[in-house]
């Protein structure tokens, strides 16, 4: 199955799980499965129009889905989807 890698800041909404396995055949389906399983995650990933929030990027392999077919991008069975949030730590 394809995998979605959950970044640390969002793991508090996935019961501290770092990986989610999905049978979704598109990125949108995969994200839907993720948010249906972890319902508290949805409002942090998607806005009211179900679009990805602007501080979140989603990658299929090494490619930003915005440079592919966005949510309609096909997901192979061995694909790795990365959710990448903005983080800001560094000094304190």
């Amino acid at each position, binding site marked *: 199955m394809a995998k979605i890698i959950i970044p640390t*800041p969002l793991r508090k909404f996935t019961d501290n799980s770092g990986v989610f396995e999905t049978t979704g055949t598109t990125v949108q389906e995969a994200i839907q499965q993720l948010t249906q399983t972890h319902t508290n995650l949805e409002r942090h990933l998607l806005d009211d129009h179900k679009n990805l*929030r602007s*501080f979140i990027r989603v990658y299929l392999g090494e490619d*930003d889905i915005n440079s592919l077919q966005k949510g309609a991008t096909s997901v192979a069975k061995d694909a790795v989807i*990365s959710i990448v949030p903005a*983080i800001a*730590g*560094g*000094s*304190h």
Partner: protein
Amino acid sequence: MNHNLSPAEMARYARHIAIPEFGIAGQEKLKAGRVLVIGSGGLGSPVLLYLAAAGVGNIGIVDFDVVDDSNLQRQVLFTTDDVGKSKAETAKERLLALNPHLNITVFKTRFTRENALELVNQYDVVADGTDNFPTRYLVNDTCVLAGKVNVYASIFQFEGQVSVFNYPNADGTRGPNYRDMFPEPPPPGLVPNCAEGGVLGVLPGIIGSMQASEVIKVLTGVGEPLAGRLFLFDAASFTTRILKVHSSPDTKITELINYEQFCGLESPADQKPVKEITVQELNEWMVQGADFQLIDVREPHEYAIANLDGELIPLGTVAAAAHKFSKDKKVVVHCRSGVRSAKAIRELEGLFGFDNLYNLKGGILAWSQEIDAAVPTY
């Protein structure tokens, strides 16, 4: 051979000079290089140590802060004896002890939109080691406006990110910048900072060393900088990923803006202010035995570090736990610095019509600083 390196410098940098692609020419570029390091904490410590050791000739350090006990778990520039001293001044002293062949300039000030361009314009490359979103966006936008390379790194708990933003392309254009990745910051409270969320002490050592390596590559032209790519490291699983970053036609940076407001940390004029109470007033209520409820909206691990004996209801659960907030007496809500508790109050007022909630101004940090120094800061 004509070069600008003294015999002592030749001896010091012999292992650089021995690298064929690097050589004396590379070392001279480092000596002539000018790097502004913003933040001398977790990331800044390894960045500064390695840039100084490598022989970057002109280093600026921007940091207004002083060394705190809680820094020593990862900020390897500083020792126990340095607690309470200026980070920037202490860093300069340590770096000159490491390498006296350097010009180090200290800016004991916050990096603000008022001084940002003036500071950045004095340098070739910026290394961003800051710790909050407003300053991240300010650093990025300043570098874009000033035409400087921004060597970026960021850390959180076990994860690190590295990239080289605004790098000059062969055709004269510039590579992607931070806003191409993240046009807008997350809302306050969603992504905790390192003080709230924690960070593995060795992580900034790993990520900051990579950041220093990218600065050296940019200055010397040796290797292929991490431009147009984002490096991710997860120390917990020891996995690394490199992702592509593209410029976005939607990114337009024409001036420096109010970054606190942009990041949602300053209330817009039309946002209803929450009622506030100072730590002095709270202390008086406590001493007088006033009838009120005290609620702490931080996370359990923060509560374990320091607390005021309030009832713990983490921010993410306040709506579900609204019935625990009294409606018939004053309720003081607090967090670490006052940002999350204000958010909790707005949420409860909006959803349930509370009108008896008071935000503790400055949070438990202010309590520690102004009322009881025995309460640890973090």
